[in-house]
């Protein structure tokens, strides 16, 4: 495995913000993205004019980085608008770290925005999948339902096991004032919710909300001068093995099994060292697959791992502490919110849901139909 330690800790998050999470009537995707950038820069104490690296992707812009730069009046020296789905922003963090370390840029901003909820529901610039579209899969949910069906068949998981993921996420959401869904939730309610694509019901599926998000990254020397304690990018790695669900080699093993070990190797830490784990939970099956593929439990044991509140507040492993895409926010591409929750936990600013002494936080992004997987590991100064 190549040694990527030269990049370890070379980018630090000094600002993070969300905007219009939940419902933001009357505001468009670009405006929500721009507002999040403004808030993240204010959080960092850095002026807009200092931003020379810009990274953005959305489901509705074909060239998001250019649209955002123009809206803000920025002239970036380096930008990246590549789109690998909801994990794009975690890949952008790796790219930003390279650009910072290479000296191409001094201040990187990564941003996202969506008004899908108030604009009438999920939509995307994605093309129809050839050799699949004719059969009318209702993607993304059909693909995740197929993965859930296979996992349940292969490992004897039940709908109640899947439901445990949603219930844990809701438990965390109840501690997060920013979360969209905060009413109590039971396993019975999840299992008996309206079926959408068997075996997944409505409450196995992520929310459809609005929301913008942004983070600001700089090199460590500058980060230490800021008003916040910097949170360092210790490890990052990406992998993808397919685009269409019919081309996924094994529906019970995601490319996180590739990205995870490389990210841990770069960080010099392992799963047992993580104080919080933030996973892209577009559907309940995601959390189970990613816990396994990232090494928190063995393959096939995720269904047991999530039982009994182990990943809920008070459990032994804090997972998706903002409430996740299932209960906090999911504006179409959720990855940047995953990363922000890891950063906020490492900062120690999470209020009632703060995990005591959180120093090492994993943020894992997923894109497409279990397609692109990007693992990042964030840590405080003492973890460097």
């Amino acid at each position, binding site marked *: 495995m190549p040694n990527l330690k030269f990049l370890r800790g070379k980018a630090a998050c000094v600002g993070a913000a969300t905007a219009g999470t939940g419902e933001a009537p009357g505001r468009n995707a670009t405006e929500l993205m721009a507002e999040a950038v403004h808030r993240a820069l204010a959080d960092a104490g850095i002026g807009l004019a200092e931003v020379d690296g810009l990274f953005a992707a959305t489901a509705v812009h074909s060239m998001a980085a250019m649209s955002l730069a123009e809206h803000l009046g920025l002239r970036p020296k380096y930008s990246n608008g590549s789109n690998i789905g909801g994990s794009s922003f975690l890949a952008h963090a790796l790219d930003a770290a390279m650009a910072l370390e290479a000296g191409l840029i001094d201040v990187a901003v990564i941003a996202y925005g969506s008004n899908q909820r108030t604009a009438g529901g999920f939509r995307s610039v994605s093309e129809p999948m*050839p050799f699949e579209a004719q059969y009318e899969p209702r993607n993304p949910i059909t693909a995740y339902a*197929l993965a859930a*069906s296979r996992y349940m068949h292969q490992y004897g998981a039940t709908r109640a096991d899947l439901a445990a993921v949603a219930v844990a996420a809701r438990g965390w959401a109840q501690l997060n004032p920013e979360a969209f869904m905060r009413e109590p939730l039971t396993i019975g309610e999840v299992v008996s919710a309206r079926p959408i694509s068997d075996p997944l019901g409505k409450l196995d599926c992520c929310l459809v909300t609005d929301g913008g998000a942004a983070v600001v990254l700089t090199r460590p020397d500058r980060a230490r001068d800021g008003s916040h304690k910097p949170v360092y990018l210790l490890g990052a790695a990406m992998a993808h093995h397919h685009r269409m669900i019919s081309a996924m080699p094994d529906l019970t093993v995601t490319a996180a099994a590739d990205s995870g070990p490389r990210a841990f190797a770069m960080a010099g830490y392992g799963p047992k060292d993580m104080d919080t784990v933030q996973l892209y939970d577009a559907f309940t099956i995601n959390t189970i697959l990613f816990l396994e593929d990232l090494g928190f439990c063995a393959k096939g044991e995720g269904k047991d791992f999530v039982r009994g509140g182990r990943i809920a507040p008070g459990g032994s492993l804090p997972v998706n502490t903002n409430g996740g895409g299932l209960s906090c926010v999911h504006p179409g591409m959720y990855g940047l919110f995953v990363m922000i929750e890891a950063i906020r936990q490492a900062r120690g600013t999470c209020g009632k849901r703060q995990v005591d002494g959180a120093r090492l936080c994993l943020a894992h992004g997923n894109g497409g139909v279990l397609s692109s997987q990007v693992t990042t590991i964030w840590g405080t100064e003492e973890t460097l």
Partner: protein
Amino acid sequence: MSGYFDGPGPEAVFREHLAQGRFMIQRSASTGRHVFYPRVVAPGTGAADLEWVEASGEGTVYATTVTRRRPEQGGDYNVALIDLAEGPRMLSRVVGIDPGAVTIGMKVRARIQELNGAPAVVFEPV
């Protein structure tokens, strides 16, 4: 003599076969490995040696879901991943059976029928 890359591409060739009632897949001459969906070169090896062979039509359900849809819009329907006997996997529907009665491991056989205005390979229980 025409070269490997001349003429219609693999998607057009596949659809032309389908229109004539044949379910054709590809096979790499060098590895013997079958390929679906239709590719320009063999995935993984990159070999420009794909040839068309008729699929046996035999398959096994690898994963399945019932897509819920209101009765007035046509009602629930099946979407499944089928492992072809030759190896490749494809997304399709199992028809001729209640969509919820399709089970993983079920043996199925391909047939060609119109679906959304074009011929498509669908599967029926054996």
